[in-house]
């Protein structure tokens, strides 16, 4: 399950990578802005894409806490668990 989420997330993130950053650079610990060099204005778009892909709604706190790929996966997992409760 986690691997599936990771693959889906990687696909979402890949769209927003600058031209000089390779998709292979996306790892669990990658920081979205400081390491992957994603334009900070695109973080809100990634959030929206994640909401659509995983059928969840993210709150402002979740967005603030989503610094790395790992953070994102943890938040997605938590939200999905909440929504199926």
């Amino acid at each position, binding site marked *: 399950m986690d691997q599936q989420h990771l693959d889906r997330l990687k696909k979402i993130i890949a769209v927003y990578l600058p031209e000089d950053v390779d998709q292979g650079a996306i790892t669990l610990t990658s920081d979205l802005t400081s390491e992957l060099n994603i334009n900070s204005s695109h973080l*809100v778009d990634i959030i929206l894409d994640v909401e659509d892909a995983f059928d969840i709604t993210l709150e402002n706190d979740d967005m603030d806490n989503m610094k790395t790929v790992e953070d994102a996966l943890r938040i997605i997992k938590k939200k999905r668990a909440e929504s199926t409760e």
Partner: protein
Amino acid sequence: MRNRVVITGMGVCAPNGVGLKAFDEALAEGQSGIRFSEELEKLNFGCQIGGTPQVNQELTDRYFSQLEQKGLNSTGMIYGVIAATDAWEDAGLPPANDEPLWNTGIIFGTGILGVDKFRESIYRVDEGNVRRLGSTAVIQTMASGISAFLGGRFGCGNQVTTNSSACITGTEAIIMGAERIRNGLADSMLVGSTSEGGPYVWGGFDAMRILPRNYNDSPEQASRPMSAEAAGFVPGSGAGAFLIESLESALSRNAVIYAEIAGGHINNGGQREGGSMTAPNSNAVQRCIRMALEDAGVNGSQISAINGHLTATAKDSTEISNWKQALELEGGDFPLINSFKGSIGHCLAAAGSIESVGTVLQLHHGRIYKNVNAEPLHPEIKELIDTTKVPVETRYVQPEIIAKASFGFGDVNACVIFKKYNP
């Protein structure tokens, strides 16, 4: 001592052709870009036709990355980027590396940008769902979204701005960019304009009942500049762009020079002396043309041809009369005059830039494009000038100097003088 200004790159996204070659062929053959719109019919428009550039996904992919296409819902951005990118590449200027191009700027106008994006945003906001707008709503709906996008694409470090002045927007952008170079404030400028189309842009004009309503079954016949049967302007859309630079800059890089911008003038009729929000003050129009000639250092008899504003309304004969008085010429000495609106409609904020591209192509290739649907010529125009001055077939002649004018709501006027480049 002012710098001479020349054109070294052009691009166009017009209802009857995208790219210089397609546009040249379409104008030479009088191919129409006016089409029936099912959408306008469904929405109960009186005028259910319009001019829209034919841009498919494949073309969009050539000008926008996958990321740039995320949430892209602004035809004005698409048309403008296509025309401007073509103009830039045509001129052969390399984009900036790390350091901005401090001496290259952009003046790229529009009337309104991102109408469909704005509509999409309004629905979300009204649903209480503002957080779902994403990052693209602002950059596609701010008027300067187009110049901002282009500024980033090419790395321009000089003035990067968007002008807006109704139907003279494109012509005004060219004149303002040229002034900047002339005065030594920039070496090169990307200038032009873009205009969206469709129901939300054209609706207001339909409501004013100034668009033709009897040609929904025969769209190609609807736009009839200078004709006795002119029934109002056909709405259009698209973009035109130029890379202009100082002669010194062009020569230093051995650039191909399409033409020289010999001069120009912009004024306003003040909505006085018969001028209003929607009607021109003829004194101001004549003054604008005369001042442009003076600025270019030419007189009326040196003008080989005119590309008019000529929208296909009752004002066409007034425009011809104004040209005649401003140039101080008799009907038989009047230059050839044409309007491209017969085949592309009135592209609003993009009219001046698209038509200027056509005008400069005439100088470059040696031709005066035919007037489409001008017959039967309006009787008042027949009284003013010889019928032969309104060519209904493309003439393969070598024009030296062409005057191009645009007039618009707000009593705004602009006239630019393009000249074949002679060292």
